[in-house]
């Protein structure tokens, strides 16, 4: 067994940026083969996933069920292409399998199911991640395991009541190995965020979470925030990531703030070229 990422304090920022770009390449390839997908969201959290899978998370790619592993829960099942890209690049899934994204009978579905290696919980019925993350953190603590639990959730999910039920419970249970990663990309299904959520960071602070608010597309800020979240101080950690949908591909960054981006068949080549020309 070969565990990845024993915690170190200095992060190889350039290497992580390259990994993020590689994840974006995978995502564009997957979405272009299918002709559609939640590509805006995926490109937006590529930097976070690169920092997690190639720096912060402890896991064994050859044994995704290793009991001591850190857990990463993707609550937004519709961001699946981002997770498939990360799991493949991390060696949990074969890279070739990315070509099956969204195909009938593929394991790499448009929405995440926990039958695919590396997937901790079923995402997609939104608002399910954080509560399950609390349960995992409690269970790991009962067993005396030092593993940490990272839960990604979206700004839209902050409109679900269950999110705040969980937000209230985690500080009560003093779950300092639980980290909520809140992807604030400013969009939801009906377009721009339909219910005002601000001030997001203050809400989490008020609920008792040690909270950082960062540019979620800047690797140095992501890494700093993840390092800051390591402290064993009895408080759960929240990182509010301000991300840009479509990040790294200027045409998609500029596109109307849409939850489900349509891309014409002949556009993908140009988008891939933009990604290579861009220095995130």
């Amino acid at each position, binding site marked *: 067994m070969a565990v990845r990422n024993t915690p170190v304090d200095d992060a190889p920022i350039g290497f992580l940026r390259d990994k993020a770009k590689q994840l974006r390449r995978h995502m564009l390839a997957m979405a272009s083969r299918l002709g559609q997908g939640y590509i805006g969201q995926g490109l937006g959290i590529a930097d976070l996933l690169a920092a997690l899978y190639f720096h912060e998370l402890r896991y064994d790619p050859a044994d995704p069920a290793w009991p001591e592993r850190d857990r990463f829960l993707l609550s937004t*099942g519709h961001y699946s292409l981002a997770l498939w890209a990360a799991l493949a690049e991390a060696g949990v899934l074969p890279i070739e399998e990315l070509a099956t994204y969204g195909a*009938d*009978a593929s394991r790499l579905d448009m929405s995440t199911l926990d039958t695919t290696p590396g997937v901790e919980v079923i995402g*997609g019925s939104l608002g399910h991640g954080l509560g399950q993350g609390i349960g995992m953190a409690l269970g790991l603590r009962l067993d005396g395991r030092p593993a940490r639990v990272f839960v990604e959730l979206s700004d839209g999910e902050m*409109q679900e009541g269950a999110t705040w039920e969980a937000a209230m419970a985690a500080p009560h249970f003093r779950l300092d190995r639980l980290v909520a990663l809140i992807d604030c990309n400013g969009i939801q299904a009906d*377009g721009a965020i339909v219910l005002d959520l601000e001030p997001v960071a203050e809400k989490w602070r008020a609920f008792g979470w040690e909270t950082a608010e960062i540019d979620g597309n800047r690797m140095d800020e992501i890494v700093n925030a993840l390092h800051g979240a390591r402290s064993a101080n009895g408080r759960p950690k929240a990182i509010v990531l301000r991300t840009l949908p479509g990040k790294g591909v200027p045409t998609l960054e500029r596109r109307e703030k849409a939850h489900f981006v349509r891309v014409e068949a002949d556009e993908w080549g140009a988008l891939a070229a933009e990604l290579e020309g861009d220095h995130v």
Partner: protein
Amino acid sequence: MSEPGRTLAMGEAERVAGHSVDAPFGRALVELGHARPDIVGLTADLGKYTDIHPFRDAFPERFFNVGMAEQNLVAVSAGLARAGKTPFCTTYGVFATRRAYDYIAIACAHSRVNVKIIAGLPGLTTGYGGTHQAIEDLALMRMVPGLVVIDPCDATDIMQATHAIAAYDGPVYMRLLRASVPVILDAAQYRFAIGEARRLRQGGDVALIGTGFMTGRALQAAEAVGRDGIAAAVLHVPTLKPFDADAVAELASQVRCVITVENHVVTGGLASLVAETLFERGMTRPLVRIGLPDRFIECGSVGFLQEKYGLTAERIEQAIRAACG
């Protein structure tokens, strides 16, 4: 889009018969909105995807997007009903029934308030897997005392049912077929009424009893076997509750075998209702239940999934031939 002031969508579907209608629910709701200032629209971040956008655009001051919060969606709707409004609230069937069940049961049904819950992505009409496919919603909703439960089969049905439930004072759960919806029923002849089944085709050999879009497939299958001299009757049951047991029993008494067809698990929905009816009335008929199995369905393209799980005219045709062979 229909002109303001018109009260009924009758005839509209007929003009486009054999084709499809865009957002039939939204069109009907806009017509109602012009006629009735008490009608309000709500959604939980799915306005674009549940065909309520025409109403949102026509009556922005009477439209409320509560964000992705289905429990609150139903609670707010119940409050609006208590304030004298007639709320139509939309989300996907899975989220209405699974997440907001308690609010539907208590705030709407127990209180008998006038809330209309419009539920997108019924059964296998989405490829997003178990999180999005409402395969057991009819069973869940049918158990709620006093709730009217509707599964329309086409654009004509949806438009007429939207008018009918607006005229009805009480809580309703209606499944939605969205976007471009085929027209199967002739609006000049068909009349939707809550609690009434409709005989769409006569036949003395076998009875096809359908609800939702599966009724359309039953008609295709009946036509196909008809060419070989098998007479299959088709009864469309758009309202699961209250259930038209008399129509089912009457048809069953005229045939040798009954086949139910539904876009739903075969437990707790139409098949169960038909079985209960036959048994209660002491009628023994072979019963073939076509619908979804007792399992969560995977992700995949809708055509692939419907084929795999037998929600097709071909599957019904096979069942008819087997039953009559």
